């Protein structure tokens, strides 16, 4: 099964759910689903900034697996990080997300 994750909540979504659950499982190839993309809203977008240690791990996994990494463009502009994301991470809105995923669409979109 192919899935896409939308990181919309801001509790421990990145530091716990992504960094301690999803990402280690992806690194160990035992996540149980093919993750075709991740989309980050609000403060979650900081994970895609160059130098973020979780982001660096995510970048490696995304490069290996061809996974889309995109952050909400308005969220990034508001935080002045739109031009500070690491290579391979993009900014965009829903039309960009759907277009980017159209070549490899997920079976499920999971909002976290």
């Amino acid at each position, binding site marked *: 099964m192919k899935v896409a994750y939308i990181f919309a909540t801001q509790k421990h979504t990145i530091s716990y759910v992504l960094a301690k659950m999803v990402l280690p499982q992806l690194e160990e190839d035992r996540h149980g689903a093919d993750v075709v993309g991740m989309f980050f809203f609000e403060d979650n977008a900081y994970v895609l900034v160059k130098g973020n240690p979780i982001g660096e791990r995510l970048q490696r996994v995304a490069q290996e697996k061809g996974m889309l990494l995109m952050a909400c463009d*308005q969220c990034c*502009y508001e935080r002045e990080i*739109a031009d500070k994301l690491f290579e391979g991470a*993009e900014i965009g809105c829903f*039309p960009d997300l759907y277009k980017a995923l159209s070549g490899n669409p997920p079976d499920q979109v999971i909002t976290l």
Partner: protein
Amino acid sequence: VTSVPPEQGKDAAHPGRPGTRRRSVDECFDLGLRRRGGPWLPVSGPICAGGNGLELQFCLDVADGTVRRVSFKVTTCITLVAYAEALAERVTGISLRDAIRVTPSDLVKSLSGVPSSKQDRAVLAIRALQGVICEAARETPNPSSRRTYP
């Protein structure tokens, strides 16, 4: 009057002039959404379309060859709205002749923080502006080019 060096974000040719200061996308987006909801002006340009369903159309109020007011209709891509607003501010109060000289590169420089993958919106914005300026020039010929006959 204290001059502001260009490296501090002002246009050396027009120090202090609104619209030539380097602005944030976020700031221009909010202003652009307000301008987008404003009244439609007498000279309409063509609807210019880009990728992803993006569209932009300017309209102008021109008097004596000078842009008095600018408005636009635009799809709600934050980067495109911000570029349209920055451009509207930049050309308000200047002649059509000067307005058509604004380049995509000028526009890119006027907004900080836009990643290169989104800077193609500046080309679309300039294309839309050039379209409305051509229309305005047709409708309001340059007064200096008028010939008088006895």
